[in-house]
């Protein structure tokens, strides 16, 4: 794609002026990070990808609200996090999804990706905030500062979530071996 050489800022300018190709390039560039993040905090990969699409749609609709100089990735991840939290609030639906998800995992998929399954089960034992912090900082390699901005929590709290979450994950995954 021609736009791949342009910076995020240039693509945002293009997208704001109505260029779908500009926004498509932003989607291409950031879809992996957003989907990886959501896959760690939402029980089901399909649900996570659906939420990722909604996230980009919301970003497109409110692109004019993105402040000049703000990082697109941090901003879009913030949208993803808020959407994931809103989805998780409908507790009944979540419980149903979790149930459906574990049923699928009991079947043929179990042997396919044991590492992913082990991580998913371990992540479920963390609080949502810890899970999100761990997914961004350990999974996506984000700086603590950017992750704190995206999740809208103080830096100290984020560091504590990452450290505690990491220790807990290590413990759970070691025990599971």
């Amino acid at each position: 794609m021609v736009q791949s050489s342009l910076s995020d800022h240039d693509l945002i300018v293009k997208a704001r002026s109505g260029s779908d190709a500009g926004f498509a390039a932003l989607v291409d560039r950031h879809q992996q990070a957003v989907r990886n993040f959501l896959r760690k905090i939402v029980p089901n990969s399909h649900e996570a990808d659906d939420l990722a699409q909604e996230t980009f749609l919301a970003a497109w609709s409110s692109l004019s609200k993105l402040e000049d100089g703000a990082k697109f990735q941090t901003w879009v991840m913030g949208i993803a996090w808020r959407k994931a939290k809103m989805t998780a609030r409908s507790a009944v639906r979540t419980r149903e999804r979790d149930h459906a998800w574990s049923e699928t995992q009991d079947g043929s998929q179990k042997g396919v990706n044991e590492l992913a399954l082990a991580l998913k089960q371990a992540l479920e034992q963390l609080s949502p905030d810890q899970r999100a912090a761990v997914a961004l900082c350990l999974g996506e390699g984000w700086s603590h500062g950017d992750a704190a901005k995206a999740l809208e929590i103080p830096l100290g709290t984020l560091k504590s979530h990452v450290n505690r979450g990491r220790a807990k994950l290590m413990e759970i995954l070691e025990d599971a071996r």
Partner: protein
Amino acid sequence: MTENNPHTDPLSNPLAKYFEADAAPATDPAFRLEVMERMARKRLYTEMAKNAATAFMLILSFMLAWPALRGALDAPGASTMATVSILTIIGIVAFAGHWLTTHRWNLRMLLPR
């Protein structure tokens, strides 16, 4: 992104292999297409809503103006000018309605700089 994250080095992050196991592909045209489709759908619904609002404004203004319009048409020696004026007003109201639904109010424009 990694300037103050001590956990990103694969050697110091034994969890890295777990995170990589369920990673989304780096490029995924199907995903992009799905997003573009949703954008097109949203754009279509927005346009339809705007057009419906414009039609509503047009019908409403016509209904409000109808008594005066009928009076003008029924009057002996009805003036074509009066009829044209009323229809013009209806057109202006409909145009204003369309403008209001297709443009966002930006109050900052009204504030002194």
